[in-house]
């Protein structure tokens, strides 16, 4: 039978109305309800219902109905009932007497079903539901003509429902995209603003829309710069939410200037109380003092901090404990070192997990090799260069890089003292010097030697330059330049002949004349300079900090090279 023969004017009218309603609707649920009513009327049925497959279980749920009993929301297990059979066989079911059909699931709400006509709704991706009409009015039975008509009416219904689903999916996807975009924007606002001449630089490259990594740095009232890098376990929105919480907690706790181990311990305590099991946070937190170049940190599960000396040597400082949010009360420890003219690299595992040419992770060695290729660049350009090279490999994870480095030529004034020509002032000189050396985290034995050398130089001015003239004045200024400490001793006594001031032979045991030897042994360089103004002498003594290449649990002392 051709379509022209099948359809009468009435059928065309119903089809046209359905198509128009579906094409123009903004509310698919309401339109479907109206369509089911129209289908019931047109098919001359006592009731009609639209079932859709719901969720992964494949249950059928009645989404719209027409008739004396409202069965909207009725759920039918997958494959059950005549409606389930229609979907399973993907074929219209014409049951003229349900009493003889074993699949009939029974009646609801007192409605007595005699006959059923049920057409599956089949879309491109497979069955999505079924449309059924019950009991032809006036005691008649549904026939094959009715069957073909219902099959035909199922087509625009299927199309409309498929389109509605697609539209809903698109809207949901767009909503998610906007939410992710907002989350990313919010994450970006959590990252610190770029600050000119700040020795702490960071960069974050998210692997997806939003990142589980973060970094932060901020100045403390005492001049130190607090910094942290974090890497939240897992991906997606829940990881991002933990990242927001963790970064806020780290900033809050870091503002107090607590020692790094206590800083992490405090955040750990908070996270252990609130974070869902299975989630954790790798984090490194610390401080950098731009004056002294003292770097302090504690590392909870992040890859080793890399210290690169100006000469190109590396030291790796492995984590001091497990990631945060795993073990409450874990006793984290702190590290200290003098950065001097070296550089500290802090990074999340994304930087070392990138795949090289052999598809193996590049690891810390590979990361160091990338740094070595870029050492001639200024810090920010070097970080960008690292990002560019990591992107050139197969960057699969969120990646965060932080670099702590200072201009080695920049002079940082530490302290100064002006004293009279009086040996009783020597104690004050020693105290002033020792205080600064303690700020640098130097161990007691190194401090003792430096203090001795400065004391000897000052005593020499009192004894030899001024020859005890009580009216004499002198000043001592302490500077740090890159990896060097400069002690500048200025006096206004008669000019000394530098060629006569040299160490003596220590093999001759005699009292006196040791001072210059002690200065010479302790300092890496020393010498006289012409005063910028006025008369007198300027003695500059230089002690190398050696880029903190000699770490110890509490401090990293410069390697003096002395035995």
């Amino acid at each position, binding site marked *: 039978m051709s379509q022209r023969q099948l359809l009468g004017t009435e059928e065309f009218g119903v089809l046209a109305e359905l198509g128009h309603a579906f094409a123009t609707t903004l509310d698919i649920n309401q339109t479907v309800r109206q369509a089911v009513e129209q289908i019931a009327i047109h098919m001359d049925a006592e009731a009609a219902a639209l079932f859709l497959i719901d969720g992964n279980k494949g249950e059928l749920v009645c989404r719209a109905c027409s008739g004396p009993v409202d069965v909207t929301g009725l759920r039918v297990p997958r494959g059950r009932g005549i409606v389930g059979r229609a979907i399973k066989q993907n074929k219209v079911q014409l049951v003229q007497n349900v009493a003889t059909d074993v699949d009939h699931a029974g009646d609801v709400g007192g409605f007595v079903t005699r006959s059923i006509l049920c057409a599956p709704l089949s879309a491109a991706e497979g069955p999505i539901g079924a449309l059924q009409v019950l009991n032809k009015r006036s005691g008649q039975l549904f026939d094959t003509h009715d069957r073909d008509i219902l099959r035909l009416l199922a087509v625009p219904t299927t199309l409309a429902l498929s389109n509605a689903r697609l539209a809903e999916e698109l809207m949901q996807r767009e909503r998610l995209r906007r939410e992710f975009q907002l989350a990313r924007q919010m994450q970006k606002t959590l990252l610190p603003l770029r600050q000119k001449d700040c020795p702490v630089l960071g960069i974050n490259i998210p692997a997806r829309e939003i990142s589980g990594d973060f970094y932060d740095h901020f100045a403390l009232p005492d001049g130190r710069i607090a910094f942290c890098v974090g890497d939240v376990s897992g991906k997606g929105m829940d990881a991002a939410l933990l990242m927001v919480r963790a970064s806020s907690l780290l900033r809050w706790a870091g503002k107090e200037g607590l020692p790094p181990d206590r800083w992490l311990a405090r955040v750990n305590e908070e996270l252990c109380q609130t974070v869902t099991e299975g989630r954790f946070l790798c984090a490194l937190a610390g401080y950098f003092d731009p004056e002294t170049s003292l770097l302090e940190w504690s590392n909870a599960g992040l890859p080793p901090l890399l210290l690169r000396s100006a000469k190109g040597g590396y030291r790796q400082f492995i984590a001091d404990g497990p990631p945060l949010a795993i073990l409450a009360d874990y006793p984290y420890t702190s590290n200290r070192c003098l950065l001097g003219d070296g550089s500290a690299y802090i990074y999340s595992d994304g930087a070392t997990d990138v795949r090289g040419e052999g598809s193996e992770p590049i690891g810390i060695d590979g990361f160091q090799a990338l740094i070595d290729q870029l050492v001639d660049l200024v810090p920010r350009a070097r970080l960008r260069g690292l990002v560019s090279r990591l992107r050139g490999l197969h960057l699969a994870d969120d990646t965060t890089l932080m670099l702590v480095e200072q201009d080695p030529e920049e002079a940082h004034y530490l302290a100064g003292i002006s004293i009279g020509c009086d040996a009783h002032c020597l104690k004050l000189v*020693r105290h002033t010097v020792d205080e600064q050396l303690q700020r640098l985290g130097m161990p007691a034995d190194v401090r003792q030697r430096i203090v*001795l050398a400065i004391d000897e130089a000052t*005593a020499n001015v009192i004894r030899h330059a001024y020859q005890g003239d009580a009216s004499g004045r002198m000043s001592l200024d302490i500077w740090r330049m890159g990896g060097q400490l400069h002690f500048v001793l200025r006096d206004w006594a008669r000019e000394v002949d530098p060629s006569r001031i040299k160490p003596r032979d220590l093999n001759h045991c005699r*009292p006196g004349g*040791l001072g210059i030897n002690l200065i010479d042994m302790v300092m890496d360089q020393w010498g006289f300079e012409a005063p910028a103004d006025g008369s007198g002498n300027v003695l500059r003594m230089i002690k190398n900090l050696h880029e903190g290449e000699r770490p110890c649990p509490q401090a990293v002392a410069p390697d003096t090279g002395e035995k």
Partner: protein
Amino acid sequence: MTAANTCVTVNEDGFRVVRVAGEVDLSWSQKLRKAILDALGGGGPVAVDLAAVSYIDSSGIAALVEGFQSARGKSQPFSLVSVSQPVIAVLELARLDRVFPIYPSLAEAPKA
């Protein structure tokens, strides 16, 4: 807390013991020098107890060297006893740690 600078000479166990405390620097190393030379003037064994010295500079070391040389010239027993770590560090730096007769305590110092 840093001990006050003191230099006291006592007779103990057959020795003239010069007991030094505090920070020995140019401001009072002459007192130490005089105390050592005075102690040596008695002719008997002399020991300089440096247990309580938290700092010593080259002028303090010079006072010890002068005492050591004076005693050697007279073949008089002269020892440094209970030498604190800061003093040992300076003696090592000046390569004098093997020149001076250094003993852990007065009981171990020779009287002849």
